[in-house]
């Protein structure tokens, strides 16, 4: 991997998050984006706690991470869509995220039709063998003019 490819990738990743105000607000960092796949992480933040008794991050923040990552995977699909919007998203919460740990989501856009993209995503924290949550979603696709 050349240095210029690395810095170009970093620039694209930074621009992607900068273009989404709420993703920046949650401190999301995009680390991989290519071929219909994306990886985005979100550091532990006390402002996002949903259960003050345990310090566990609110499911809503995990949903936002999943939605952002899934949308990024759609945009990275080789068919190069120009825009996308979530049609539906289902999130299964396997367990509480461990307080203090960064949550990382990996999303894969595994099928596209002319107007719809299908995506699945998994979120993990410090222990990748036990996912925190999984998600599946359908996204509307906007194609560029041929």
């Amino acid at each position, binding site marked *: 991997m050349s240095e210029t490819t690395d810095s170009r990738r970093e620039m694209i990743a930074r621009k992607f998050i900068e273009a*989404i105000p*709420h993703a920046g607000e949650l401190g999301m960092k995009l680390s991989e984006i290519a071929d219909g796949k994306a990886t985005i992480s979100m550091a532990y933040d006390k*402002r996002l706690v949903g259960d003050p008794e345990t310090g566990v*991050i609110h499911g*809503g923040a995990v949903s*936002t991470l999943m*939605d952002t990552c899934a949308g990024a995977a759609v945009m990275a699909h080789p068919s190069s869509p120009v825009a996308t919007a979530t049609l539906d*998203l289902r*999130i299964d*919460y396997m367990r509480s995220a461990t307080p203090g740990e960064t949550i990382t989501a990996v999303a894969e856009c595994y099928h596209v039709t002319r107007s719809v993209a299908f995506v699945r995503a998994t979120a993990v924290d410090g222990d990748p063998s036990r996912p925190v949550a999984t998600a599946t979603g359908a996204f509307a696709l906007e194609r560029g003019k041929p």
Partner: protein
Amino acid sequence: MIRKPEPVQVVKQRRDAALQTLIAGVPYIQFLGIQVDRRGDELTAILPYADKLIGNPMLPALHGGVTAAFLEVTAIVELSWAMIWDDLEAGRLDEAAPSLSFPKTIDFTIDYLRSGLPRDAYARARVNRSGRRFASVHVEAWQDNRNRLIAQGTGHFLMPSRDG
């Protein structure tokens, strides 16, 4: 001998205090700026517009994740409220420190119907089934028109254990 009903201010004060205790302690609810309006036992969650909630600045539109979070918060608050209501009305609740455990989300499905405009959003939830262990809650969100929903959601929740 018929007992005189409680003065209305006392009843309102008790209900509002319990509701505020429920939501004020959750950092994420404060972070999103969600407020809850109460009419009797009916709750309406309000998400006042803020620039930081935007997901697509070109349209502009609320972030889909914000809409999802707003629905999920509303569902959990409604479910918790329904859980404490009887104790609250019977005066069995310690308002200063209701020892409250929130229900845990098992799964949540969001159906996006329209893009969220840069305006305030509102949501109401309905507990369709609340058993000893599980609950199913439906929630709807709208902006300017009550009958033009921006999103709806359904979630299943694990109820906190009530023993002890």
